[in-house]
């Protein structure tokens, strides 16, 4: 097997995540799909690291994980705040940047 298959899998997972972002309405599920896309990118980075034979790809994947953690903290805080004021986690209801 060629490790390029990992890249195909990463592309497939990224595409599925993008589909989720486009189709779903629940803000939390959309957010989970974004996480899936980030994870797919990480898999591609780790595979590139192996293909190139150096560790730079793994460093980039590591930074992606850190940024994803920070993003989740802020994003979930925003979702909780919106839910508190609107009693709904649907992105259709939050059409305006005001309450």
């Amino acid at each position, binding site marked *: 097997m*060629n490790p390029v298959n990992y890249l195909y899998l990463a592309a497939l997972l990224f595409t*599925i995540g993008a589909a989720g972002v486009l189709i779903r309405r629940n803000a*939390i599920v959309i957010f989970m799909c974004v996480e899936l896309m980030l994870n797919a990118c990480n898999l591609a980075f*780790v595979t590139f690291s192996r293909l190139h*034979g150096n560790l730079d790809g*793994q460093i980039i994947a*590591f930074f992606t*994980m850190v940024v994803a953690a920070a993003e989740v903290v*802020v994003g979930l805080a925003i979702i909780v705040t919106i839910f508190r004021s609107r009693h709904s986690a649907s992105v259709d209801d939050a059409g305006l940047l005001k309450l």
Partner: protein
Amino acid sequence: MNASSPVVSSLAASAASTTSTGEAVQFWILAVVAVLGALGAVFMRQAVHSALSLAGTMIVLAVFYLANGAYFLGVVQIVVYTGAIMMLFLFVVMLVGVTAADSLKETIKGQRWLAALCVLGFGTLLMAGIANASLKEWNGIGRANAGGNVEGLAALLFTKYVFAFEITGALLITAAVGAMVLTHRERTERAATQRELAERRIREGKQITPLPAPGVYARHNAVDIPGLLPDGTTSDLTVSPTLRARGQVRDVSGEALDDLAALEQRSGDWQERGRSEDAGAKGAGK
């Protein structure tokens, strides 16, 4: 790639063109699991099920990282992603989205078909791009990992990428402060006193007394058993609306009525027997 340069030719000597059969088997089995988990995350109705599917996909990805020689990242993936991030997601889902079922009604006409079309085109382009690269040989991670994966990563992180690392620290602090600012609620008015609360309750006139307790006196005191009204029917006020919404209310009113009926039956039998014994005694007396 210029194969005539000495560096490249020495790399090409160490380059491989296929992985072990074990890794291939592992890939084809776990890739199916990963894709199924991703599809589950997208298409499950309940947000909790989506989160659990995604956690499964992330664990599979951790195994793939380990298989690709990224030992540190594999462990970090399990600890940070499945351990911390997904549990944070589950926490917020429990806080926010359990009762709010996702509506399947389309608000933008034809959005799903357009989304499917876009995703299909995007995926095709991505796959075609990878296939077009036609990578046949690669340098394994073995030489880079020779001094240890964690040591190699640390050496890179604190030399070449040290500024990115420092900026990451600033990012994390900003995120922590941002989360606190977003979830903090400033008290804009004075807290109402007990007297004001009582007056407001009388003015609204909805439920002046405290709500009646759940349970049936001297028989059950569980919170999911509604109290009984004098006529034997259950009272909705006595159980929490959450339990009612979940359909987890146990109704034992029938039980009490059955017990009563059985008691009446027994006492009736007893009286009947007493009467017949009396009659027998009278008959013997005659």
